[in-house]
Structures are given as C-alpha cells and as structure tokens.
C-alpha cells in the first residue's frame, strides 16, 4: 500500500537531483590549455556522414585560432528553418549558420543578418572575386551582402547509359536541344509488359521545385519568371507559356514522365533505382548516385532551347546580427569560405565549392564521374532564381496553379496567367511593406 508513496517520493527526489545536477553542467568556456576562449555556435543541416569531417575541420580551425571555440549544432533538414526562426524570435540564434537564397531576403529585411559587406571591405585576406559571381549575387541586396558563398551548385541531366544502350538510343551530345531531348525521352520510355503503363520512363520530370525542375525551361525559351526589377511575374507571357506547355506535355501528352504523386514520393530515387532513363538532378546528387550498382550513368548538360540556360543553387554562411562575438564569427566565416574548407566540399561529392580555383581544380574534377565538367561549363551562364522577399509565398502561389497543369486539369495559358496574377499581388505587397520599413 505504501509503495505508491515511496514511488512518489523517489521520483520527486530523482527529479530534484537531476534538475540540480543539470544546472551546473554548462561550462566549456575555458580551453584545455587554460587560455580564455570565445565560444561561437555554428549551425547547419546535412547528412549524418558529414558530421565527422565537419568536426575535424572545426578542430583544424581551432588549432589555428586557439582563442576561439566552435560548437557545431548539427540540425536535421526537416526542422532546420523552424528552429532557426524560433531561435531568432528568442534572440538566441547561432552566431554562424547555413542559409539559402530563399530565406536570405526575408531574414535580412527583419534585421536578423549581419551585413558582411563592411567586414569584407575591411579584411584584405578575402576577395569575393575568387568566388563564382552567382553565389555572391544570391546574397547581395543593393550594397549589402548577407552571407559568404559556400557552394555553387547547378542542375544537369543525369542519364542511365545502360537503358540508352539497351534501347539503341545514342547518348546525349553536349549541344543537344529540346527536340532531340524529347525524341530520346520517347525512345527510352518502355512498357515491358504492355499494360499501358510505362515500366521505364524516358524522363524523370519533377514538379515540386522551380529551381530543380521547371524554372530553367522557361529561361531556355527566352521567358522569365519575374522581371528584372522583381516587380512583375512574367509567367503569363507567350515564351514562358510555351515552355511550360512543352514541360507539361512530357507527362500529359507524351507520357514519358511519372505523374505528380509518383514523382513527389519517389523523386530522385526513380533514377537511382533504374526506373528512368534521364533525370534532372543537382550537382549535389553525385554522392547519392554512386550507390547505383546495376547500371552505368553519366551527366549531360541541360538541353538548350532558344538559348542555353541553367539554374544556380548556392548556399552561404551568414552571421547572426545579434551575435555577441562577431569578430570570432567572422574568423570562422572566412574559414568556411577558405581553401581548406572548400576542398572538403569538393571531395564530398555533395557540392560544387564556391571558390572557383578549387572547383576548377583536379580536386573537384577527379575523373570519377563522366560529364562532371558540364556542371562547371553550365556555371558560365547559369543564373540564380529571382529571389525576393516572401519567396516561399511566391513559389507556393505558382506551384498551386501549375500543379493543375501537370495533372492535365487546367490549360497552361490560363494557369500561367492566374499564377502571374497571384504573384503580382504578393510583389505589390512587398513593394508597400518595403516602403514602410
């Protein structure tokens, strides 16, 4: 009978002891060698297997800077942004964190990011000219710079050589165009058991991402998504509509691509498992695709339409505007953009480093993957998306309309016009709130 009282007492005691013991366990301010050290926090998302390499580089940084201690906060992709926002709301965001173009303008407009331009100007050891200009452009807004470039990725066509050979289709040539692409996609699509449903698709069209999937087709057709001053959405214009029609025909008319639900569930895994002949994928997928054992693959540049065009996906490292240790954070930011760190990126197979000399060196072009050089070639003309404030809202407005197109439920022209209208409204709100700030 008394056991309940005992359990209660015991549990309370355990609770009290644990809470007390926990209160005193935050230290890590002094270094093992007794020098007083500044602690800075650095947050990024990534794959578990990247952690160890990251920690080693941090140790190497700490050896060069014995007065700085870097705490790595490794976050999961799923909750990275929510957490960062909660931390910013509480005023406790990490001193240095990984940032993408989509959120850069939003956070900057709300005073969360340190303008790095003065830091760059003051520091002679760092020259932005050494980096791919696009990755600098992503984080540049007027005279401000919101992050130091980390990587500079782009999207190209990965193709399954084994399927091409089996179907007797010649491999893509570097100067191929839309027509050639469509013929190859058709020729590779295969319904082995004749049940009316392809078992192998010619092309792994995706629909979720403006950047990886459909955006650059618009550019290739001399179309635009937003105008230069980012005040108007241009999707309703004839060139853009024509490009979107070409893309949607792949799934709706020619049936050489998986449908929306399938593509959203299986995504890149369709290529990895040999169920598509061609797939538009980022340069960050090389490492993942090395898992493919049963077929040979290579990389071809994106086919050209009326012109050549390709997207840039660049991440940067930003400094928290309310960081208490900005000098130390700056030193670490520079390290992340330095040759030493960039070489790690080059070797990882998950990124093209933003530092040009590393990207163009044999460290990146290691000869392991056929056609890797096309990424670098594309980077001579590739462009970032038209990032602006409320970009998530803009993407969502467009996605909703285009989805009906991919499903064959709405005419391309009508959907594109409606999308443009919805985006124009958001851009108009941006202009108003921009004036208020």
């Amino acid at each position, binding site marked *: 009978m008394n056991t309940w009282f005992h359990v209660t007492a015991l549990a309370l005691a355990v609770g009290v002891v644990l809470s007390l013991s926990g209160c005193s366990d935050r230290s890590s301010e002094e270094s093992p060698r007794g020098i007083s050290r500044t602690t800075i926090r650095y947050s990024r998302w990534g794959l578990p297997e990247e952690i160890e390499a990251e920690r080693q580089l941090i140790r190497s940084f700490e050896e060069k800077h014995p007065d700085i201690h870097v705490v790595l906060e490794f976050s999961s992709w799923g909750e990275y942004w929510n957490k960062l*926002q909660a931390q910013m709301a509480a005023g406790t965001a990490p001193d240095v964190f990984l940032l993408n173009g989509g959120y850069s303008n939003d956070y900057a407009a709300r005073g969360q990011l340190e303008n790095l331009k003065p830091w760059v100007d003051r520091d002679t050891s760092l020259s932005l000219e050494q980096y791919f200009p696009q990755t600098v452009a992503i984080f540049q807004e007027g005279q401000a710079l919101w992050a130091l470039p980390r990587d500079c990725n782009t999207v190209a066509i990965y193709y399954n050589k084994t399927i091409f050979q089996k179907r007797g289709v010649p491999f893509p040539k570097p100067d191929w165009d839309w027509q050639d692409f469509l013929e190859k996609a058709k020729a590779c699509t295969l319904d082995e058991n004749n049940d009316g449903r392809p078992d192998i698709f010619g092309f792994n069209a995706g629909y979720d991402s403006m950047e990886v999937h459909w955006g650059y087709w618009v550019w290739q057709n001399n179309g635009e998504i937003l105008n230069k001053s980012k005040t108007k959405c241009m999707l309703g214009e004839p060139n853009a509509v024509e490009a979107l029609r070409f893309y949607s025909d792949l799934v709706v008319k020619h049936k050489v691509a998986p449908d929306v639900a399938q593509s959203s569930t299986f995504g890149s895994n369709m290529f990895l498992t040999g169920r598509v002949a061609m797939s538009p994928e980022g340069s960050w997928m090389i490492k993942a695709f090395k898992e493919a054992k049963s077929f040979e693959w290579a990389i071809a540049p994106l086919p050209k339409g009326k012109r050549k065009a390709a997207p840039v996906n660049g991440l940067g490292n930003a400094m928290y505007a309310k960081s208490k240790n900005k000098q130390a954070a700056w030193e670490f930011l520079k390290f992340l953009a330095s040759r030493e760190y960039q070489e790690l990126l080059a070797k990882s197979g998950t990124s093209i480093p933003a530092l040009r000399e590393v990207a163009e060196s044999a460290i990146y072009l290691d000869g392991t993957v056929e056609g890797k050089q096309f990424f670098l070639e594309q980077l001579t003309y590739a462009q970032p998306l038209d990032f602006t404030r409320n970009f998530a809202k803009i993407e*969502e407005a467009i996605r909703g309309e285009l989805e009906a197109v991919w*499903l064959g439920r709405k005419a391309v022209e009508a959907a594109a016009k409606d999308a443009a209208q919805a985006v124009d409204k958001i851009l108009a709100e941006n202009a108003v709130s921009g004036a208020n700030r």
Partner: protein
Amino acid sequence: MARVSFSRNHASSPLARIERIWGWLLTLPFVLGLLFFSLGPISAAIGLAFFHWDNLTPPRFAGLANWQRLWGDELFWKALRNTLYYVAGSVPTGIVLSLALALLINLRLPAIQIFRTLYFTPVVTSTVAVALVWTWFYDSNYGILNYVIERLGRLLGIAWLRPIAWLNDPRTAMPAIIAMSVWKGLGYNMVIFLAALQNVPRELYEAAAIDGANRFRQFIHVTLPGISPVMFFVLVTSMIGAFQVFDQVYIMARDGRPANSTLTLVYYLYNHAFRYLDMGYACTIGMALFILIGAVTGIQIVLQRKWVHS
C-alpha cells in the same frame, strides 16, 4: 457533472472542507503546470491573432485586420471544409472499428496477446514510415491497390473497376488519407476501449445473464453504459485530434495537393507560421479553429449528460 451526494448539502460541513483542501492539494502540480507552461504561451497565441507578427520583429497591433482577412480568404474556407470532411470521415469510422477490434481482442483465447500486439503496431510505427508505405500502396501506376482493383475488375468482368488515381485525384485524395489515418489510429482507441471493457464489473454480466439477456442485449445494456465515460473521452479526444490533423497531410500530400483538396486548417496555419513568416495570421487561423473545436466539444459535454453514466 455536479452530483448531489449525501454529505454535500452544506459548504461548511467538515467533509466539504476536507474535499476542498484535498482538491486543491491534489491538483496543485497541474495548476502550477497550467500557470507556468500553458497560460503564457496560450494567451500569447490568442493575443497574437490581433497582431501582425513575423516571428522576428516586434509585433504590431492589427486590430481586427487578421479576422477581416480570414473572412475573405477563400483558401481558409476551403481548408475548413476539408478539415470538416476529414473529421466526419475519420472519427465515426475510427470509433466503431476500434470498439469492434477491442471486443474481438477481449476474447479470452490462447495467444490473444500476440494479436493485441500485432494490432497495435500501426500506432507505434512512425508516421513517416507509414505514410511512405501507403503512398506506395496508392501509387496510380505501380500501387498494390490498383493492381488488385484491376485484377478483380478483369476477373469479375466489372467495367467500372478500373485503376484510380488516388492521391492524384482531388476526389479521392482525402478519402485515401482518411483511410490511412483510421488504420493508423485504430490500435490507439482499441487499447483505451480494452481497458474500459476490463473496468466493467463482471458481476453485472452475470446478473444480466441470469435475467436471460443474450450477448447482444448484454452489450447494449451492460457494456455500452459501463464504458460510456470512456466512450465520451474517445469521442472528444478523437474529434480534437482530427480537427488538428497535420502529420499525414504534411507527408502524404505536400502542400494540400492535388488542387488544395487535402489542405487542412493546421497545415494552412503551419505554412503561414513558418514558411510565410506570418505568425499573426497563423494564430488567427488557430483561434478560429480553437473556437470551432471548443464549440463542438461544448456541445458534446452538454449532450453527454444524456448518455454518459458516471
């Protein structure tokens, strides 16, 4: 709820005093928890419905602006309709099926505990894993479900038994998600009902059997009244949970696809809170949902006096 009992006629009676003191004493941790962990955040969430807040800069008072916007927001109404559809589709089915399962596994058969554990697996399996498996089932080209439907159609010569686009079709996407959710949640309420069934004194069954009541009549007259407080609990919590459906939709039907047919209120709210940096409006949606849930729960509390025995 308030029951008159032999000793409570005078608030000043010694028993009333003892109950008062013990009542406060026993609820003290809970009250502290409410004050400390819930009161602040909840009032913040309610208050923010009247502010513009982007999570990052100080909130600006908005008056009723968010509510006006809500009133004219087509997507909000769409999400509301979808949510009601989800609640209506999942709650009754879930309760009936889980009670049936509970009765089944309440049988005293050898090895029944193995079945209990098996029936419980969907509950513990991570929603991510489950959603992936079900998306595979529903796949319009390669899914097992369509494979079976097609085979059956051919076998029986029924023309309308043809593959369905499931998650790609605005008409079937929500039912598909409801079916998955019911399946996933069955074991949960099953276990609650199982515990409730154990609580019904066996003597009552014996008495009823002596009076000549058959199994069915025993179920109606002994089992159902006996588990009614728990039934009330299951009904209320299932409703509250269903109104806030999020995880399944988040994984199986990103962005409310197709054609916003699976856009639910909490998903819509989440987008505003974290993707569009519009927490003020998110809280407005949250409050609208709160008022709705509160009203439905209030009605249930009033109605329960007619059917719950306590």
